[in-house]
Every structure is written in C-alpha cells, then in structure tokens.
C-alpha cells in the first residue's frame, strides 16, 4: 500500500452461484488503488461487476478470493466510515426527512444536541430547507436523492460509495444534481477529505464528476483500463460542451465498444 492510498483492492474475485446452481464470476482477480480524497467512477455495461465491487468495499459482501482494504484494514462488515448512497434512495419510509438524516448520527452515538446540529447542517448543505418534516413518499426523485446524500454525509464518513445514484432521474434533474454533487462533495470535504467511489453506466457523468474513471468489462467482470480526467476543479456545467471533454468521452466509448466487438467475433 503506497502512501495516500485509501482503498485497496488486491486480487479480488467474487463467485456467485445462481439459483440454478450455475457459477458466475462477477469479478475476476481485480486490482484497484484509490487515493485519499479522490473521486473515482466505475463505468461499464451491466454484469461487469461494478456494483459487486462497490458492495465489497461497503462490506455487504465478502470476496471469494483476494483482499479489500480501507486504510490498510480488511473490510469485514458495513461500517459508518463508509457511507452508501443507493440508486433507489433506500430512505426509511416511516421516518421524516430530518429523522432519516438523524439515523446515522444516532447510530454512532452522537449526543442529541450534536444530532440536531448535524441534521440542520446537512439539510442546508443539500438545500432541503423547509422539507424537514416531509416523509419520503412526499418527495420527488431529485429531493429524495438529496435527502439520501444528506443522510450519508451526516455521519461525516471518510468514504462515500454511490451506486448509480442518479440513474432513476430524468436528464435535466440528473445534470442539476451532478453539479450539486460536486458542490456538496467539495463543501463536505472541507473538514475532512472524502473519497468517493461512484458507480454509473453513463460515460459523461463519470467524466464530469471524477478524477479517474475505471472502465470495466463483463464475463468475467474485470478492469479494462483506468482513464485519468485532467480537467481542473471546480468544474462548471459548460465543461460538458468542451471539445476535450468530448474527445475523452469518445475514448472511453471506444474502450467499451471495441471489447464488445471482439466478443462478438469470438461468438
């Protein structure tokens, strides 16, 4: 483990057994190093193991082979140091927005006063002011994901794991939230840097948000290439219109598709 490494994935394989008894290699001897404070996206078609990789880092699943480490310690279970944001928000439907956000701080033993302060701070950070008492079923998709983000940040985790958090939203809301995500990430990182692992199937989203993009391929799931994204931060929405951005987008697109053609030839 080199200095500054936050998350280390070494020789990790994950074998699933389907209901029919068939074995599927979701992840094959994968290596990946993620630096402290880095924003890394994982892109790839479905079945490439990107969500599996995220679940392994979260501690929801254990690798069949290899090691997943955070700060040099092997991951054995989910923990408050690694916050997770889910595609379908996974908000507790019986809790209000404020109570959802308070769930984490209460779980890790904050005092009632500290809980209140964190909730207030996170609500204004994600701009949900005035929605404290609303319930998840009263929120739109965009507001739900803001609430889920606030709930994750309320614990002040070192690592934020996001599993296609914007995939269920319409295109316009998605772009707005991409901008918001960068702002929230940079503000939340003031006190303590936050490492983000972001799973998506949208190339432009990955490039806009990330320092590096991990390109994965399926059957078996493995890392094809890692693309550096050189654009300076803070990034503005117009960046999506730059020729450089499009060139990089094309590069990742070709990476993903060339492999598919090769597979087609083989078949």
């Amino acid at each position: 483990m080199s200095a500054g490494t936050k998350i280390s994935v070494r020789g990790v394989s994950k074998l699933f057994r389907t209901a029919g008894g068939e074995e599927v290699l979701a992840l094959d001897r994968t290596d990946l190093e993620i630096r402290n404070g880095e924003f890394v996206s994982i892109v790839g078609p479905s079945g490439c193991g990107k969500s599996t990789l995220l679940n392994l880092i979260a501690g929801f699943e254990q690798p069949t082979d290899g090691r997943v480490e955070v700060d040099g310690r092997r991951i054995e279970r989910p923990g408050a140091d690694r916050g997770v944001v889910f595609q379908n928000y996974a908000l507790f439907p019986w809790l209000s927005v404020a109570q959802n956000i308070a769930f984490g701080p209460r779980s890790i033993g904050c005092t009632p006063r500290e809980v209140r302060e964190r909730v207030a701070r996170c609500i204004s950070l994600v701009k949900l002011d005035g929605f404290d008492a609303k319930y998840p079923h009263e929120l739109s998709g965009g507001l739900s994901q803001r609430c889920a983000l606030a709930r994750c940040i309320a614990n002040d985790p070192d690592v934020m794991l996001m599993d296609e958090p914007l995939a269920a939203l319409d295109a316009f809301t998605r772009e707005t939230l991409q901008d918001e995500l960068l702002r929230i990430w940079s503000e939340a990182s003031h006190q303590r840097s936050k490492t983000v692992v972001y799973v998506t199937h949208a190339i432009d989203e990955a490039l806009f948000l990330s320092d590096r993009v991990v390109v994965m391929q399926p059957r078996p799931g493995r890392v094809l290439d890692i693309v550096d994204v050189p654009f300076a931060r803070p990034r503005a929405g117009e960046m999506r219109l730059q020729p450089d951005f499009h060139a990089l987008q094309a590069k990742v697109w070709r990476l993903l598709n060339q492999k598919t053609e090769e597979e087609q030839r083989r078949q």
Partner: protein
Amino acid sequence: MAEDAETAAPGPTGSAPSSATAPLSRYLLRLCIPAVLILAWILATTTFQLFPKALLPAPWDVVRSAVRLIETGELLEHVLASLERILYANLLALGLGVPLGLAMGMSRTFENLLGGMLSIFRPIPPLAWVPLAILWFGIGTLSIVFITFLAAFFAVLLNTIAGTRAVDQRLVRAAASLGAGRRRIVLNVVLPSVLPYIFTGARIAVGVSWMSIVAAELIAASNGLGYMISFYREVLRTDVVIVGMLTIGVIGLMMDLGSRWLENRLLPWRQHGGVA
C-alpha cells in the same frame, strides 16, 4: 414491502377511505340487497306466515327482544364477557406471535427449530382442542381464552413471518452502513417494516377469534355471546338467537373499521404505496 397477495388486506386505496366522497347513488346501491332481504323477511313471516315463530321470528320480534336485552343489561353482560376473552386471547397471540414470527423470519435456526412442530399444530382446528381445554382448564374463561388464542396466534405468527421475509434488504444495508448494530436494525428497521403485516395479522386474528369464541362458548362457558345463542336456542327463542348473531356482526364490523382507521393513523406512509 409490496402488498403480497398472501394474507395482506386490501390497501387503503380500497373502498373504505374513498367512501367519504362517494356519491349518494353508491350508498343507495349498497342498501339495495339488504332492503330486499328485509322485505322478503317481513313478507315471509307476516303476510304469508311461511315459518313457525321458532324457526324464523318476525323482524319486530327480534327488535323487541334486542331492546329488552339491552334494557335488562343481559346483552351487555354477554358482550363484555366475550370481548374480555377476545382481548386476552389476542394480547397473548400478539405477545407470542410477533417475537416468534420475527425470530423465525430472520433466523434459519429458529425456523428449523419451530417450523415443523407448528406445521403439525396449525391444521388442527381450534375447536378440536375443546375437550382437552375443558379437561385442563375446566368450563369458563380460561378454556375459552386458550381456544381463541390458538385461533388468533397462527394469524399473527404467519403474517409476522411473511412481513419479516419481505423486509427490503436495501434498508437493512443502508442502516448497517450508517453504523446501526444488529439490535438497532431489528428495532428500527425490521420492526417498522413488519408493522403493516402485524396489523393485518391482528385484524385477521380478531376475525377468526370471533369464529372460534362463539363455537367454544357454545360448549365450555356459562356466559358470553356464544353461550347466549346456545341457551336461547334450547328454549326455542330464535329471536334472541338472531339478536346475538347480529350483535356479533355489528361488533366485528366496528372492530374492522376501527383497526383500519388506527392503521392509517399510525402508519401514514403506507397510504402512499410503501417503500420510497
């Protein structure tokens, strides 16, 4: 937490809440069949005199008996006796059924430990326990509570198990990654998720309680609505028998409406289609 077909009751999108805005014609439509039945009853007992009074008394005989039973307090005494037994039996069923259901829904070990034995007991109708209950507990409240409990228990247990299995695993994962331990996950994620199922289980339990309690009281009690019905049948007072039957119908309806109201009050998020 989809509304599974199994034991789940129809959602709040059903007829109950919308009836507040129902047009007059819908009420009239609902009253049609009862009106026809009552008319047929009147014609059959008075105009045509098809049945002797002991087989089917006239409606006003039933009403007159009802008024007399209410005035003397006899009806209330029997109603309270039955209600008390139903209350005890269902509290017991909830107290045992919910924790057992949670344990069996969450742990394979518990499921294997208890599943087999419960599958043997479940098909035994509660009434088949009457002879044993009388031998063990004698004639009276204890026997009836025991038999009614058996009926209610399985409704609560099976619904709790179904609810526990249906808990959204994403919510459990979310809670774990927010730092919640096992105890907090059970109390603050699993239990609230299962609550709608427990409500359904309790509502079904109260329903089957009425079925078994009346039958049990026919045999093993000296008061209660079942006893009242049985006693007056023996003296051929069919009008009182009908009063007893209608009383059960009305109380059952009120309990069902009450529990639906309570459920909508306590679980407001359910009205809008479950998990966000």
